[in-house]
């Protein structure tokens, strides 16, 4: 009984450790500008105001940055699944020469720092005229999210027994029909989780987004490059706005989180 209580206490402490900083950031962002300089601080907001958030959204470029962030993340999500799911299917269903080599390449891509991708690509993107566009950032983010999408979708497809597909073939389906009628419906929830994950990878990425944009900032790039000029409460509001989607994301994919990581690392 005593040990049970101890475990529960530890678990609660760990949860507090995670949650309280987020809560305090929210208090800072919702408490109105004067909370920032209040001294000493109180744990409860003295009043709830949207002034800070209004100020944040009122700053020139913020809306554009948010829209860019969403656009880039959506592009990343779509591209990584369009490129990754077919590859995952091939890895899951076929035995062919070069398979191991391909797997190795995919695994290797995860070992390389983003800096080494983003810097040379800046030059190339300027040359072909897509520098400072959401597409350019999305391309680099897709390179980040793609290996994950490939490995996870491959294990999702492996989770659909091959015999189901074969049964569909013998019952009159083409390969494509069998995929659409049998494999896809069964893999869809996992694929959705993978897409959400790709979205968040992109939404959170800072380095490449900052290097590859000048005016068409994403939200992270905007916040990072304006750190020196912006007041504290602006940063707090921005930080909070970055975090909120994350909470929703983890909630949406919590069922898949562990199986995704469990298999993606084999």
């Amino acid at each position: 009984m005593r040990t049970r209580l101890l475990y529960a206490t530890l678990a609660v402490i760990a949860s507090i450790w995670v949650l309280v900083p987020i809560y305090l950031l929210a208090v800072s962002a919702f408490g109105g500008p004067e909370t920032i300089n209040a001294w000493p601080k109180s744990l409860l907001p003295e009043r709830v105001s949207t002034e800070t958030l209004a100020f944040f959204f009122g700053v020139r470029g913020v809306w554009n940055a948010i829209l860019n962030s969403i656009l880039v993340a959506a592009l990343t999500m779509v591209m990584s699944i369009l490129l990754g799911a077919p590859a995952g299917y091939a890895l899951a269903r076929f035995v062919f020469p070069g398979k191991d080599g391909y797997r190795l390449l995919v695994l290797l891509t995860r070992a390389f720092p983003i800096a080494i991708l983003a810097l040379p690509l800046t030059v190339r993107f300027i040359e072909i005229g897509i520098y400072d566009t959401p597409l350019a950032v999305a391309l680099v983010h897709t390179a980040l999210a793609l290996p994950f999408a490939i490995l996870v979708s491959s294990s999702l497809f492996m989770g659909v027994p091959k015999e189901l597909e074969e049964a569909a073939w013998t019952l009159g389906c083409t390969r494509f029909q069998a995929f659409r009628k049998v494999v896809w419906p069964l893999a869809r929830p996992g694929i959705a989780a993978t897409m959400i994950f790709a979205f968040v990878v992109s939404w959170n990425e800072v380095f490449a987004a900052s290097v590859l944009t000048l005016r068409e900032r994403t939200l992270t790039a905007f916040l990072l490059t304006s750190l020196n000029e912006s007041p504290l409460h602006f940063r707090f509001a921005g930080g909070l706005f970055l975090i909120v989607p994350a909470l929703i994301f983890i909630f949406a994919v919590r069922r898949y989180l562990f199986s995704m990581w469990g298999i993606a690392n084999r």
Partner: protein
Amino acid sequence: MARILVRDIKKTFGKFVALKSVSMEVADGEFTVLLGPSGCGKTTLLRIIAGLETADRGEVWIGERRIDRLPPRARNIAMVFQNYAVFPHMTVFDNIAFGLRMQKRGSEEEIRRTVEWAAELVHIESQLEKYTGQLSGGQRQRVAVARALAVRPQVLLMDEPLSNLDALLRLEMRAELKTILRECATTTIYVTHDQVEAMSLADRIAIMHGGEIEQYDTPLEIYRNPATLFCGGFIGSPPMNFLEAERVAPGRYRVGGLELEGPRDAGPKLLLGIRPEDLEPVADGGAALAGSVLVVEPLGSHLLATLRLDGRLLRFAGDADLPLHPGETLRLRPRADRLRWFDPESERAVRS
């Protein structure tokens, strides 16, 4: 016409030879059972006929059509998978209707009627609205059978379709399957481990062993005249007895204390195959195989005894009323017209 012709099929997985050189012809409307121990290549052969696996060489014909290059959907077959492969995201109804819908077989109304017909055959008509995830293994297996029957294929391939049913239901469905398939004149290949099932269903049985068909014949013929030691040992329960025989003169062999008429032009050492029920107790003091009784199993309809004879075991099936007790000595003589001889080297039967 939907005979199945399989000619010289070879299949390897890497270095492992799963099928050596398999040939067989199943006549139109015939019910053939593939029987063999686990891992002998039954499923592999079925999958090659279905087009789910590509053979290294050889041909497959259905009717007058060579089909080994066609995709599964163009072969006009249906298959029941060993692990059912029913679609978990569909109801029982949609599962059974799947093939009909994919092949655009008639209106929804016609499809509904066919589905109900097939569901009734396998006794799952009350489960049609359920998702297959909620079904037991036996129920899923029946859905798989119904799904295959519903498309009324030319050729039906079934991989242990009744393995998960309880004994009673199994007996019942076995009988029904046989009637339905006879009525529809569907050419069928049916895989099973279970030799009783094989004997009761099959027009002909193909005994597979180590990637080869060792014998392909009617159940009775295989029982009476096994082509190999393996066939004799695999069919029949208890299996055939094998006793060492030594030639004493051309055409005469000594087995235990007996001298028997054997094949004329065969080697000096043979194996005598004799079924347990083809041994007869010897009352008088004449020459016989004398063994001490180890175990007696009274089965009601008859009696089974295990004897020790020259350090080997011998099975004997006799009249239920025979007064036998462990420890006694039993003297037996094989029926002269039921002697089967085998070459111990080639393991094949030697005709006398």
